């Protein structure tokens, strides 16, 4: 049972990390890379951010997909909601809302998946 509770917590951590990285990538890295003057130092910074954050997001998203899938099986989500949760890691901002929905949903329908010591009651 402890492993199951961990799954939910791991999901939340990964979702938030993936969301933050994607936000930086889309709202900071890409605009700097493509909307600034060619060869400027701002553009260099944008290129660096895009590369580093892009790679990090890619690998974290892999972990996110696996975690979200196993959580979806445990919590018996519908196919539609599962696909939404998986795809959310690729759509900026959406993942924060999905993480919120997942948390509500798991709390309401599968309280046994939520560890008692969870401190995120405010979310």
């Amino acid at each position, binding site marked *: 049972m402890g492993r199951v509770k961990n799954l939910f917590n791991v999901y939340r951590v990964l979702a938030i990390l993936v969301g933050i990285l994607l936000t930086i990538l889309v709202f900071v890295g890409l605009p700097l890379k493509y909307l600034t003057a*060619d*060869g*400027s*130092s701002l553009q*260099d*910074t944008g*290129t*660096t951010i895009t*590369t580093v954050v*892009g*790679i990090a997001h*890619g*690998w974290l*998203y*892999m972990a996110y*997909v*696996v975690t979200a*899938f196993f959580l979806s099986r445990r919590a*018996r*989500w*519908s*196919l*539609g*909601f599962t696909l939404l949760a998986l795809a959310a890691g690729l759509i900026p901002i959406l993942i924060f809302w999905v993480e919120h929905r997942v948390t509500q*949903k798991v709390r309401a*329908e599968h309280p046994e998946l939520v560890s008692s010591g969870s401190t995120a009651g405010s979310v």
Partner: protein
Amino acid sequence: MPALLAPRYWGLHLLALVLTLAAVGLGVWQYDAWQARRAAEAQDLTLVDPVPLTKVMGSDAPFPGDKVGQPVILDGTWVPSGTVFVSGREHDGREGYWVVTPLAISGQGDPAIPVVRGWVDRPSDAPRAPTGKADLVGWLQPPEGTGQFDDNPNDDVLPQLRTADLIQHVDQDLYGAYAVVADRATPGSWPVGARATNDGTAGLVHADPEQMPDAGRFTALRNFLYAIEWWFFAAFALFVWVRWIRDETARLETEARAGEGEDGETQATPAEGPAGEPAGTAADGQ
């Protein structure tokens, strides 16, 4: 198992197949891009005939990605006042400086390209920068820039050959590239070595080509990592598909057995069961 080949499951099978194949294909595409980049870098452009710089790129054009290391003929006028030193360059295991002087192509005031004339231990060891006309062969390199800061922008020592920093040291435009003076070229009457005119290398150690940072290694690495990610997703899609087939088969069997047990009671099961099940789970979707 044959039950899962029923037409109402075709959509799901098709989706799984498309997702798997798409992920495999995207992985192959990234892998090819990685290989192509590496091949382009491995190709020794120093064995290509030199061409005039203006044939390769214009002064305000972006760096042509496939021309890293291309030997170019630089026929122009030195801008000695724009000489800078680039720190952190190794030679025989010792850290020193690149000596860089812009060369205006071709008259005073025209756009200039920074030329790495050679290497020194300390900036004070460098001979005076050359003046006047020059005609030489250089290996073309993309400007550097990994976000390293110049901690003292007022002196003539830079951490990197970056156009944005170099532009502070000259009055004219700069090419989005730099060149390293070549000490060899393909056979022919190129202005290289002793045949070069006023190439500014006297008193300097030649800057070795292997010290040149190769362009796009990180980008190429990114392509490789993306390829792995895509294949991982392909395998995962396959895994989900197989698992779904297994679970669905088990469910259908259980249903069939339950149907037999209760006999006439649940005649509607085959028609209603599959439709009723997703509806039940979809309800908690939203």
